[in-house]
């Protein structure tokens, strides 16, 4: 067993819903207070059991001699007496009562654990804080010293120190303390270092708060929770070290009982009296186990992320979104390459399933660029991932709808069929070029893979094709770039690589999810020009997911505006900007800070985008709409045709259009 601190694994991330669609919903109303952590901890059965066991050990530590029914060093009983009503766990080779020795021996393990940890905390906390906050030369020296101590396994250095100090429990505890210090110093240092870089610490400095106050109020509370977790795990390790050292003859000396020396003594008779070995061994293992489980539970209870498993979505296949009821295939609407009909997506949450996209219907014609626009949390990214069935199940699931592509419904398809479409007929370009390329493989490797997944071509041919495409997307010196890793390229270049990767198999449809959001303005301009050029050359259809209405105005043919999981308006790009029909669209257009006309105040939309669990009945914009009436909240609002091929989800759209016309006139 290593010092558990250095082997700490990251907290549970897997069960968390990472989609931004649910952001702040799960985290809301849960301040990171100790009270909440305690409440969560109490709800976890295994750590609670471990905690109760630790309480029992503490009781034995203080009252063990009262509970023991024999004097632990009394040798009057028979040797290896066997289990009886008098000797519950039998006797040892000198006729001493094993149960009494076990109970009284608890004190040695527990006391040495707690005493060592206390000493470690007192020494390591200030050193770690100093190294982490001050940094520089002091940090370097402290690190070197800790490295030196760490270059011996904990047990070896503890043994060396114990042997120098001489046998005995107190010396053993000092040795254990010494062996545990580097781990905690490193933890505190790393945590301090991380916290020091936090913006809120910088904010405190900007306020002019003195350093001691910053340390006390901003750093120490943040260091504390991982330290408490680590301390619990280190307690288990300290008990292990104590038992090991005692087993080797260093710790508590006979005749006083301890688990370690009981084990040492009994081991001699392992062939004849295995039970006497088994008893202290189990005691040691159980104690360590309970401290570890307690620590693991504490960490989960203190973590920001919800540890309760989300409910409501069954486990699906890895890499494919599950579909609840795949309705029978219908025919593809004429003249469309993609028709999304009634698409509804839900996510599992600890409180049960939550619908995040409701009844989304739109289609894309060959060679057309359709914009899917909305603020974060509106469901636009979920919609685009759901088309490719890229949402993980759990937490996500498509509950109903159809995704008709090129004459087939994609939703009932098995993984093997879906795989043939992905990257071949439909390709995706993602938002963040920094993280969407695998950092561990070269550009060439990833491009060649994209080709060879769908075509039986040699590596050399695939490389030639990859080079052509890199050329096409404007990457200079394409051939030599194949050997480079993603981190060698700038953000704009990586986005070009991702675009090239999407185009290698001549897809009929490209779904671009915020392709320029992470880029600088001048680079965004380059990428938009590139997309326009490629779309002209390849005549592919494209879905462009974005929050930027400027980007929409620049390159889209048609637009669907999403709000709170629904499409609220759909129109040709010219119609939408010239005559927005939905109050949300109108407000959104007025809220954009523009280059011209700075003197106007921006239109604001009162309130915030509601999280999925708080979506109003009826019109979902009703809580923020200035034109709201009773009929808006009466029931679900259908998407209705209005004007020249426009679709609007507003019960008052006709009325409002007439009013608007009147005002203008």
């Amino acid at each position: 067993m290593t010092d558990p601190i250095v082997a700490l694994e990251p907290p549970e991330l897997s069960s968390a819903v990472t989609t931004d669609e649910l952001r702040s919903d799960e985290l809301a109303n849960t301040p990171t207070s100790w009270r909440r952590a305690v409440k969560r901890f109490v709800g976890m059965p295994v750590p609670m059991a471990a905690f109760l066991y630790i309480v029992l050990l503490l009781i034995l530590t203080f009252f063990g001699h009262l509970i023991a029914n024999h004097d632990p060093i009394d040798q009057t009983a028979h040797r290896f007496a066997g289990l009886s009503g008098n000797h519950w766990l039998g006797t040892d080779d000198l006729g001493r009562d094993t149960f009494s020795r076990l109970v009284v021996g608890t004190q040695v393990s527990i006391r040495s654990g707690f005493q060592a940890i206390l000493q470690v905390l007192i020494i390591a906390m200030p050193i770690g804080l100093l190294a982490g906050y001050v940094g520089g030369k002091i940090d370097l020296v402290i690190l070197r010293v800790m490295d030196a101590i760490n270059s011996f396994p904990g047990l070896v250095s503890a043994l060396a120190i114990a042997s120098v100090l001489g046998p005995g429990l107190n010396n053993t505890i000092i040795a254990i303390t010494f062996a545990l210090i580097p781990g905690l110093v490193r933890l505190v240092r790393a945590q301090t270092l991380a916290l020091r870089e936090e913006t809120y610490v910088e904010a405190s400095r900007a306020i002019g708060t003195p350093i001691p106050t910053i340390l006390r109020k901003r750093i120490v509370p943040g260091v504390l929770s991982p330290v408490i977790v680590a301390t619990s795990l280190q307690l288990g390790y300290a008990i292990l070290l104590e038992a090991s050292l005692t087993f080797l003859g260093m710790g508590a000396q006979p005749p006083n009982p301890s688990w370690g020396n009981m084990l040492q003594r009994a081991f001699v008779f392992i062939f004849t009296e295995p039970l006497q070995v088994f008893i202290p061994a189990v005691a040691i293992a159980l104690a360590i186990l309970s401290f570890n489980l307690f620590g693991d539970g504490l960490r989960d209870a203190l973590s920001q992320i919800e540890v309760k498993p989300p409910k409501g979505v069954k486990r699906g296949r890895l890499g494919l979104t599950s579909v609840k009821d795949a309705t029978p295939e219908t025919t593809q609407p004429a003249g469309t390459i993609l028709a999304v009909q009634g698409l509804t997506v839900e996510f599992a949450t600890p409180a049960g399933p939550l619908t995040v996209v409701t009844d989304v219907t739109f289609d894309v014609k060959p060679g057309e660029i359709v914009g899917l626009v909305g603020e974060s949390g509106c469901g636009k990214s979920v919609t685009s991932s759901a088309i490719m069935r890229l949402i993980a199940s759990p937490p996500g699931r498509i509950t109903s709808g159809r995704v008709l592509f090129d004459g087939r419904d994609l939703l009932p398809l098995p993984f093997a069929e879906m795989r043939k479409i992905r990257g071949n007929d439909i390709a995706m370009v993602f938002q963040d070029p920094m993280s969407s390329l695998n950092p561990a493989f070269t550009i060439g490797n990833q491009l060649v893979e994209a080709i060879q997944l769908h075509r039986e071509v040699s590596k050399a041919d695939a490389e030639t094709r990859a080079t052509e495409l890199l050329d096409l997307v404007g990457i200079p010196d394409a051939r030599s770039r194949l050997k480079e890793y993603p981190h060698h390229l700038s953000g704009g270049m990586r986005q070009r690589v991702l675009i090239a990767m999407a185009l290698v198999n001549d897809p009929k449809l490209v779904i671009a999810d915020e392709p320029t959001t992470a880029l600088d303005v001048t680079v965004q301009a380059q990428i938009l020009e590139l997309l326009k050029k490629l779309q002209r050359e390849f005549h592919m259809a494209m879905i462009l997911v974005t929050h930027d209405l400027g980007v929409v105005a620049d390159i889209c043919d048609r637009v669907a505006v999403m709000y709170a999981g629904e499409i609220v308006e759909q129109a040709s790009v010219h119609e939408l900007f010239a005559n927005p029909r939905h109050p949300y669209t109108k407000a959104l257009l007025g809220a954009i800070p523009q280059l011209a006309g700075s003197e106007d105040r921006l239109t604001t939309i009162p309130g915030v985008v509601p999280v999925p669990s708080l979506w109003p009945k009826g019109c979902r914009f009703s809580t923020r709409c200035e034109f709201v009436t009773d009929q808006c909240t009466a029931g679900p609002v259908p998407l209705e045709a209005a004007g020249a091929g426009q679709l609007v989800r507003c019960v008052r759209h006709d009325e409002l259009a007439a009013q608007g016309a009147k005002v203008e006139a």
Partner: protein
Amino acid sequence: MAHLILRRLVALVPTMLLATFAVFGLITLVPGDAAQTLAGGDNATPERVAEVRKEMGLDKPFLVQYWNWLKGASHGDLGKSLASGNKITTELRQALPVSASIVLAAVILGLLFGVSAGVLAGMRPGSRLDRSLVGATTLGIAIPSFVAAMVLILLFAVQRRWFPAIGFTKFSDSPLQWLKSVTLPAIALSLGVAASIARQIRAALADVLGSAYIRTAWAKGGSTGRVVGKHALKNAAIPAVTVFALQVGSLLGGALIVENIFAIPGLGTYVLRGVLALDLPVIQGVALMFVLINVVLSLLVDISYGYLNPKVRVS
């Protein structure tokens, strides 16, 4: 590569000096008198003790003693054992391969079981398989290797006499007996390694599978084997490598007790004997050995980091 190794070694010189100096300082604090022990214990005449002290250089100032030891060590001379009178390098040469065979076997077992359990669990976090594997790793981490060793002896050497309970057979004497004598200690040692690696891989894999580049790999039309086995695992291995190195370090500590239990004449038994007999040069020699092993380990970790994560590759 040679450059990397060289730089790494240079960087570790201060650590090595610090560590050996600390051990040296610690040993001089030992209450017993090494010269007295060497001269024949309590019965030795004061003259004889003084003579021995001079012979061993123990009458010189502390720093001079350390300097002399360093000079010797740099020429591969670690002095003689006080207890046996043999050259320490010779004794180390005998003990090291014994420990190495156990530790290496434990490492291989640990990697094999750790990685496969980690991948199985990490692919489906929250599933029944995952939960039972996580439960098993919790046990694996909590059970001390010496407890595991005793249970193994009870089960497979006492109840079923499949393996010898104690002793070590050299590979050159009998490969089969060697394998038998190595099996139980290696299993006992490997439990913790396997459990820690499994946990790391599981957590990292579950994390990596949610990352943007994995979504890209699915979106390309990648199969499960390709996405998990190629794209995810190489990235998930990075944190596991760190833990692995730490585990190997602690294996050496665990080997100390496990060798003692199985009565195997390895490094652990050797250093334990040295510590109990306050055999100064032996402790010093083994300490240096541990530091060297650490250097090699961290070098290996660096090299594998470079392979796994091109970003840290040194140009």
